[in-house]
């Protein structure tokens, strides 16, 4: 039920006294179309909606490539301190030294864990981070008078945002095939590289849930041809504290701080797509960043400007990133420390490999069975779809009934009828076992009583959606005249 449906017209009397002094022609002819409810009605409405959420605070949420891990409460309480949350974006630098100092340290910590030489916290989301990264690659080639480089290479295992980003930056995209073992096809890559190559976008570990073992060779091939390497940091959780994109040879990376560094996400924002660069791209960094000036025995933090980054790609928003997300990420990183970073990747990888091994034992087919998984793995329900006419989507819907958020379905596109499962490091063995048990139960239902699976979910407030209608007749607007 929408809050407008609770609304009773005339509940809130208009106070015409307030209108004194406002010229008649500037006043509304009709009252604003806002819901008229009591405070308690509003509280109950939103509390009721919140109980219908499937969230990391209520359920195991193994959504592959999304890193739905626990977001420590302490990071949130610090971000909500009025000294942070109440800071005006235009507050003078001398009154913002604490905030600017945290941002500076966050930049430094991100450089350290990724092996990059500079970091910008300006991008407001992963997609904007990608955009900024590829825009810097383009600015770099343009500054070198290298205008013929107009092609970005993207492996077919990539996230869909990669080709979209390259296209947004005016590049054409060339897809590179992946081998059955999950590595990039080097022969095809060799054939695709040329004087037109601006760069390569790669996720490592890839969306197939395996580490790209030939990365050094790939980096060398791209650099020799004059191209640059872009690292999609969506899967950074798998390698945190173990291996650094800068050491692999990458020139730009974006890190989804909201994933790897545990701030609440999944509802469409706010996020952070902080970007790291190698030395040659520093002049092109977006504005604003935070710079530390030292001298006369004093440290002073200040906003970077156009003189610091003369060839900057410019502003990405009116101010500077999403500070709330950045503070949460900062606190989370400080809590973890260097050793904690390594434990993140160790336990996220251990959890994924434990689940993959147990699910293989239970008869499920892994997409790349002969290799260790990274922090996520894929099972394919090709056999179930063919023999039992129960699809990956049916399994996903049935999982909701059993109290588990569905894994990522039908992605990556390379694997038919797939579920991409990412347990993260914060789940207990009991919860992992519970999920596996639920999958085994659904498998038995698919064999003996398939209808219960193909018509799931049965216990959710919203039942099976008509996805065709949802895609073709998308209508999300509500007009007051619809109110009865």
């Amino acid at each position, binding site marked *: 039920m929408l809050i407008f449906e609770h609304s009773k017209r005339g509940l809130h009397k208009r106070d015409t006294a307030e209108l004194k002094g406002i010229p008649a022609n500037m006043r509304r002819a009709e009252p604003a179309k806002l819901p008229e409810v009591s405070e308690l009605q509003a509280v109950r409405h939103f509390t009721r909606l919140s109980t219908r959420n499937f969230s990391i605070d209520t359920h195991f949420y193994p959504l592959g490539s999304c890193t739905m891990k626990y977001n420590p409460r302490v990071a949130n309480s610090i971000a909500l301190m009025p000294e942070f949350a109440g800071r005006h974006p235009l507050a003078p630098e001398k009154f913002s030294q604490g905030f600017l100092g945290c941002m500076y340290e966050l930049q430094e910590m991100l450089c350290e864990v990724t092996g990059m030489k500079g970091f910008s916290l300006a991008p407001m989301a992963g997609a904007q981070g990608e955009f900024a990264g590829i825009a810097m690659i383009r600015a770099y080639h343009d500054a070198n008078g290298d205008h013929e480089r107009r092609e970005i290479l993207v492996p077919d295992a990539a996230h869909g945002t990669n080709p979209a980003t390259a296209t947004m930056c005016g590049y054409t995209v060339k897809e590179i095939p992946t081998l059955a073992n999950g590595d990039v096809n080097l022969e095809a890559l060799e054939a695709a590289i040329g004087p037109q190559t601006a760069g390569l976008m790669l996720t490592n570990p890839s969306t197939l849930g395996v580490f790209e073992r030939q990365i050094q060779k790939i980096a060398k091939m791209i650099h020799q041809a004059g191209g640059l390497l872009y690292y999609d940091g969506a899967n950074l959780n798998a390698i945190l504290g173990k291996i650094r994109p800068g050491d692999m040879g990458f020139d730009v990376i974006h890190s989804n701080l909201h994933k790897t560094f545990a701030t609440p996400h999944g509802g469409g924002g706010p996020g952070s797509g902080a970007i790291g660069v190698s030395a040659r791209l520093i002049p092109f960094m977006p504005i604003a960043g935070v710079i530390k000036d030292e001298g006369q025995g004093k440290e002073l933090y200040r906003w970077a400007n156009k003189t610091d980054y003369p060839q900057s790609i410019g502003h990405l928003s009116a101010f500077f990133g999403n500070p709330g997300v950045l503070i949460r990420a900062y606190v989370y990183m400080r809590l973890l420390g260097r050793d904690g970073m390594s434990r993140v990747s160790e336990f996220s990888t251990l959890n994924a490999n434990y689940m993959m091994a147990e699910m293989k034992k239970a008869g499920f087919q892994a997409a790349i069975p002969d290799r260790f998984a990274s922090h996520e793995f894929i099972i394919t329900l090709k056999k179930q779809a063919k023999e039992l006419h129960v699809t990956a*989507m049916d399994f996903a819907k049935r999982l909701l009934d059993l109290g588990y958020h569905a894994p990522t379905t*039908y*992605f990556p*596109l390379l694997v*038919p009828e797939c579920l991409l499962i990412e347990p993260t490091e914060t789940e207990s063995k009991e919860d992992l076992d519970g999920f596996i048990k639920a999958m085994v139960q659904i498998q038995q239902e698919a064999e003996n009583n398939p209808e219960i699976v193909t018509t799931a979910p049965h216990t959710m407030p919203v039942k099976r959606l008509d*996805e*065709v209608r949802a*895609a*073709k007749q998308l209508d999300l607007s509500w007009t007051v005249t619809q109110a009865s």
Partner: protein
Amino acid sequence: MSNIPEELKYTASHEWVKMNDDGTVSVGLTEHAQELLGDIVFVETPEIETEFAAEEACCVVESVKAASDVYMPISGEIVDTNGELTERPEIINSSPYDDGWIFKIKPSNEDELEGLMDAQSYEDSLED
């Protein structure tokens, strides 16, 4: 096994190709391809009179699962597209080989047709 008509030619990327009497060539998606995609909700057909090289992406088909490219089976110029798909993209699901045709090409080199798969080879390629 899905339906693979004998008289058509096929590509590895699951397009079917039909030689018409007027020298043009019709292209669509195979039954197997539409099964993989699931319910199709949108088709972006190529512009008429555009020329594409063989294997170039020329059209986008969107289903409830994913957006996929359709590739040119042979090089040539687009001479016609199926207008019916704007309103009823689901005919690719219900009638992939007839009502659900996507575009027609005027081939720039008819010899390229020889490089395509016949029904038997396409069927073999689906078995793995």
